[in-house]
């Protein structure tokens, strides 16, 4: 993995503060740099400021103070419509978006807004639908699809915008294990193809498995920022922000044996470790 010092910053958030009408700021002088091709998980309890933060990236919210740069450009003067081309945002509830009577028209709405030609829109729609596995439902009415399918339609309609940066708000909530895995695999593919990914979630097992970088927020500030293996084992910090570390991490930390590393975040890793410890070779090593 390339060191982040060599990668150019894509998004720079400088001292971002947002208060609305509250006394307490929802975002308190937040600094964050996101690099090209990052795969970043944004975690924190409800009200910590995660959604507020990311909504500044596509202009849905404008800072009270502070600046945001995308590709070196200050986005304060750029409209939401134009930013939509660079920053795609998949909302949690697909029913907040769906309004047309055909899936393909729905997916084509975004590209149309960007002023693309009908041919280009058609091409992008087909690509997007095939990415999410809904090509066979292109002419169906989105209103009659299942919740999981509607979520994919919403995802496809943002994918069709082909924005470099993708923000996903709770992409796997309300889905079963299989569906969640499929969505995450798709996002991994997108990241491999060059997209920068920011996703918000409560599922820390998912974060442990897929994210390459974890940013923990609490009360409007960033409390931790690093690879999953660095952030997730900080169980005390997580507990203070009302989050729960993955079960496997908690288990590793609660076991009496001191020789166990305390930064385990996956079952595979732990299983490997234990099997090696319990194997005859290791046992002989200890003796000899």
């Amino acid at each position, binding site marked *: 993995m390339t060191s982040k010092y060599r990668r150019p910053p894509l998004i720079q958030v400088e001292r971002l503060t947002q208060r609305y009408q509250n006394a307490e700021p929802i975002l308190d002088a937040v600094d964050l740099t996101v690099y090209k091709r990052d795969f970043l998980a944004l975690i924190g309890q409800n009200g910590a400021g995660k959604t507020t933060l990311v909504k500044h990236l596509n202009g849905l919210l404008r800072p009270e103070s502070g600046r945001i740069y995308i590709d070196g450009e200050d986005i304060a003067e750029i409209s939401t419509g134009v930013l939509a081309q660079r920053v795609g945002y998949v909302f949690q509830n697909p029913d907040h*978006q769906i309004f047309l009577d055909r899936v393909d028209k729905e997916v084509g*709405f975004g590209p149309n*807004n*960007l002023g693309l030609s009908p041919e280009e829109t058609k091409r992008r729609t087909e690509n997007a639908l095939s990415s999410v596995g809904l090509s066979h439902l292109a002419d169906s009415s989105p209103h009659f699809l299942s919740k999981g399918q509607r979520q994919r339609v919403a995802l496809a309609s943002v994918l069709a915008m082909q924005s470099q940066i993708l923000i996903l708000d709770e992409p796997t909530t309300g889905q079963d294990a299989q569906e969640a895995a499929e969505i995450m695999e798709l996002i991994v593919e997108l990241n491999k193809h060059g997209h920068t990914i920011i996703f918000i979630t409560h599922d820390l097992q998912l974060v442990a498995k897929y994210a390459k970088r974890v940013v923990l927020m609490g009360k409007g500030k960033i409390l931790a920022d690093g690879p999953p293996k660095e952030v997730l084992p900080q169980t005390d910090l997580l507990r203070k922000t009302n989050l729960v570390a993955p079960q496997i991490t908690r288990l590793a930390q609660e076991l009496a044996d001191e020789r166990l590393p305390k930064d385990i975040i996956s079952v595979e890793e732990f299983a490997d470790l234990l099997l090696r410890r319990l194997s005859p070779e290791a046992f002989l090593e200890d003796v000899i």
Partner: protein
Amino acid sequence: MGRAVEYLAVESPIHRLNPLTKLAGVISFFTLGLVFSNPLILLGIMLAVFLLYFIAGAGRILRNYLKPLLGVSIFILLIQALFSHEGIELFRYIPKDLPVLGWIGAVHQESLLLGLTIVTRMGVFAFSLPLLLATTQPRDLILGLVDKLKFPYDYAFMLITALRFIPTLFVEMDQIFQAQSARGFDLKAQPLPKRIKSYLPLVVPLVMTALKKAERLAVAMETRGYGLGNRTYLRKLSFSADDCFVCAGFCCLILVGVGFKIMYRL
């Protein structure tokens, strides 16, 4: 705007009044608003309503309403000033002999007075109802209507539940607007003739969401026994001395007002 129809939970003498008293108050203001046509008197009534807002601690709600109503008022006055020509000329700003513009060119007394009457009367109507909603809990309003006035419960319930969900739907509307904006949807960029159709991305999701919520709510209600028949109520409303006093006060006001109107042909 969703906040405007919400109950404001503070303590005030107005909050303590029986909801029916307050309803009578709104009706009284409406009546007085209709009885009088003199803009000065109507303005006085409106200012009296404003005073009640401050007594109720609802200054914030008043402020939320003032701006839009001010806008509409100015619009009405402008129309009256430009296009209605009753009564004597008060002020001419375009010479009379100019072909078309000469006709518009002056503000006339009666027209202006009519404009002021419309605006102040509108103010009386528009400001009195939200005061009721801000100082009365929806359940108390239903209770008052159903218990004392024998309103059918289902209708009262429909009304109050609709009110309870208005803020929720405003929140949904906001989220829908953001979700569509994130797809490049720009309401202002749409050409005027297509404007109505261009609201579809906002309206359809909102209606669908509202319908879904309504359906789920209906199920939730029935699984908690709604519709079983004879309903009872946790709290009973009472009439205090203050209520009698206020009601009597409104009655007097109306009688006096009508009396004055007849006597002095105001």
